[in-house]
């Protein structure tokens, strides 16, 4: 019987089985940031242990950083302390840090791929659930807790039980105005927020193949939002072309050798998955969420539904109440106050290009505050070079400095109580963007359209105009 891509990579990383069924898995790359690492460093210090393989860890500061005046000391005391702690720990343990002020600084899941640290066939972890992003390159990448961060520091290994495998195939051609964010919001709305729990997902099909690396990352990024441990896509020419010439990619003859190896990374024809789903790309339209988990999504043309059979009506009702929506009302036309374009889901250069192309010659509605936060210093620099920053400014958008920003509101960028924000991030949980904030998840195009219209709107209507 053939093997799935997932099993090929997993098997190549098993150091030893553990009696009872778990396995010791070798980790090729470890990303860290300031929020989930301090207690792990302290644990090492308490045991008097060094970082076992410091060359395989890359650190950056992203969650707490301000998106204005990054050249000045961080004003908020606790944030500053956490970021300084990371700097101190990296120095002490000999780790590479792309901290504030470094040209490679940015959201951890944006910088890994853009620097070529993320490569096909690897195992990659980070104390962050959206580590699943890196799976777009055909690797096993997943989020871990702080105790596990400490384990990887100390041994470059983790104890894991092998998840089940799921394949989600999307075939066909995407319609105009539909982006990869819509694909994943659509999938999660069909599978629900817990529908992938216990599984590792492989995304396949002609619609997935047709996507750029940036768009594939958006899909893998949100795998965790249906509970999946991670998601991955078999590498192909698009992947190899993306990686060629990047800072930490293999160079010259090494690159060709690596490519030959990477070409063996696919699910065999007769590989068996524990679960399979098939979707038709033509059925996917621009999506928005109406509730307080990413599974509560609908097409922008639909109205807010009622609780489905099997859904807990109390939980569902509480979500609608929090969001200020009623079953049966049309979501399009809902007045909004904020637009946030950013986060590890949609802050890459391609996202910014799409938004700029749409915004050119348009302006945001007066009552809307609109913010674009690039995913990294490199993205920011390129956006300026390509003249995108100017277009954003002319459209009345605030183009900020890189970081996680309003995705989780650990810095100053918060959405006020009760106000609506159309956001390109990945979580619409209660209070995620600030206490009482109401988040509507959408693609960068749909978010930009909402800023222009001042309300939730079908971007396709503005594209024709």
């Amino acid at each position, binding site marked *: 019987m053939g093997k799935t891509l997932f099993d090929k990579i997993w098997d*190549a990383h098993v*150091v*030893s089985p*553990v*009696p*009872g*069924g*778990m396995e*010791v898995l*070798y980790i*090729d790359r470890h990303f860290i940031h300031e*929020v*989930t690492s*301090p*207690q792990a460093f*302290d*644990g090492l210090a308490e*045991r008097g242990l060094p970082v076992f393989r410091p060359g*395989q860890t890359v650190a950056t500061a992203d*969650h*707490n950083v301000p998106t204005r005046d990054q050249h000045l000391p961080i004003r908020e005391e*606790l*944030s500053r*302390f*956490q970021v300084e*702690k990371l700097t101190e720990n990296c120095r002490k343990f000999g780790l590479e840090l792309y901290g504030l002020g470094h040209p490679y600084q940015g959201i951890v899941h944006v910088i890994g791929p853009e620097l070529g640290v993320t490569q096909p066939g690897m195992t990659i972890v980070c*104390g*962050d*659930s959206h580590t699943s992003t890196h799976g777009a390159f055909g690797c096993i990448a997943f989020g*871990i*807790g702080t*105790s*596990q961060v400490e*384990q990887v520091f*100390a*041994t*470059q*290994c*983790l*104890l894991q039980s092998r998840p089940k495998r799921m394949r989600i195939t999307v075939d066909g051609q995407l319609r105009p105005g539909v982006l990869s964010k819509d694909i994943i919001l659509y999938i999660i709305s069909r599978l629900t927020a*817990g529908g992938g*729990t216990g599984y590792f997902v492989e995304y396949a099909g002609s619609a997935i193949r047709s996507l750029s690396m940036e768009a594939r990352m958006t899909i893998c990024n949100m795998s*965790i939002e249906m*509970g999946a*441990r991670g998601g991955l896509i078999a590498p192909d020419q698009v992947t190899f072309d993306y990686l060629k010439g990047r800072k930490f990619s293999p160079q010259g003859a090494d690159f060709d050798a690596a490519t030959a190896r990477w070409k063996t990374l696919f699910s065999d024809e007769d590989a068996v998955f524990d679960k399979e789903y098939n979707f038709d790309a033509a059925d996917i339209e621009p999506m928005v969420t109406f509730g307080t*988990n990413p599974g509560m999504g609908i097409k922008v043309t639909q109205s807010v539904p009622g609780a489905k059979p099997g859904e*807990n009506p*109390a*939980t569902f009702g*509480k979500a609608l109440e929090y969001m200020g929506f009623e079953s049966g009302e049309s979501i399009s036309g809902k007045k909004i106050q904020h637009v946030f374009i950013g986060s590890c889901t949609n802050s890459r250069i391609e996202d910014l290009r799409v938004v700029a192309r749409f915004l050119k010659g348009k302006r945001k509605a007066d009552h809307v505050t609109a913010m674009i936060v690039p995913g990294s210093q490199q993205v920011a620099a390129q956006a300026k070079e390509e003249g995108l920053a100017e277009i954003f400014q002319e459209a009345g958008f605030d183009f900020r400095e890189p970081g996680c920003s309003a995705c*989780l*509101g*650990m810095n100053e960028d918060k959405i006020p*109580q009760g106000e609506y924000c159309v956001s390109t991030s990945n*979580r619409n*949980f*209660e*209070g*995620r963007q600030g*206490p009482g904030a109401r988040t509507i998840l959408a693609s960068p195009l749909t978010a930009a359209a909402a800023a222009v219209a001042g309300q939730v709107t079908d971007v396709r209507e503005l594209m024709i105009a």
Partner: protein
Amino acid sequence: MEKFKAIKSSAVPLPAEDVDTDQIIPARFLKATTREGFGDNLFRDWRYNSDGTPKKDFILNNPVYAGDILVAGKNFGCGSSREHAAWALYDFGFRVVVSSFFADIFKGNALNNGLLPITVSPEILDEIFLAIESNPGAEFSVDLENQTLELPVSGKKVSFDIDPYKKTCLLNGYDDLDYLLSLKDKIEQFERERGVVI
């Protein structure tokens, strides 16, 4: 990690589904660099109004419900990988969480911190909620050694699954790191065989 001891306790019901770790401990409380004190902010925005006064209708503010066991609706602990969620529940005093299913990362984090996640069928979960509703003080017994959860009144014993390795760790207070460190030679051999460039 502390050893997991047998438990006889009343339980706190939280029937909400898809409780995410942003609710268990909101991001703005993740700025601490130690593991202690997170219990104060457990379920912060469900527990307190913005002026810091307790919300009367939230279960943790109802003196009728208390105990070492939290019983929650399905898909508990979804969302962020923050281990702070497990720390907050433990720090608050919970030792067991019962649900009909847990998010993967949360489950792993709980087990790594001496907090036992017990998965039961949706039917049993309903039965547990009913038992608490009819008598909030009724005591449940958790026996990890024999992998059973005993319900009050009916005395029904429900068995639950746990990975045998993880069970040993909990009962003895071992953590994964001790085990991994004991494999150092194997890990280095693996690196040599695979030609890992260090």
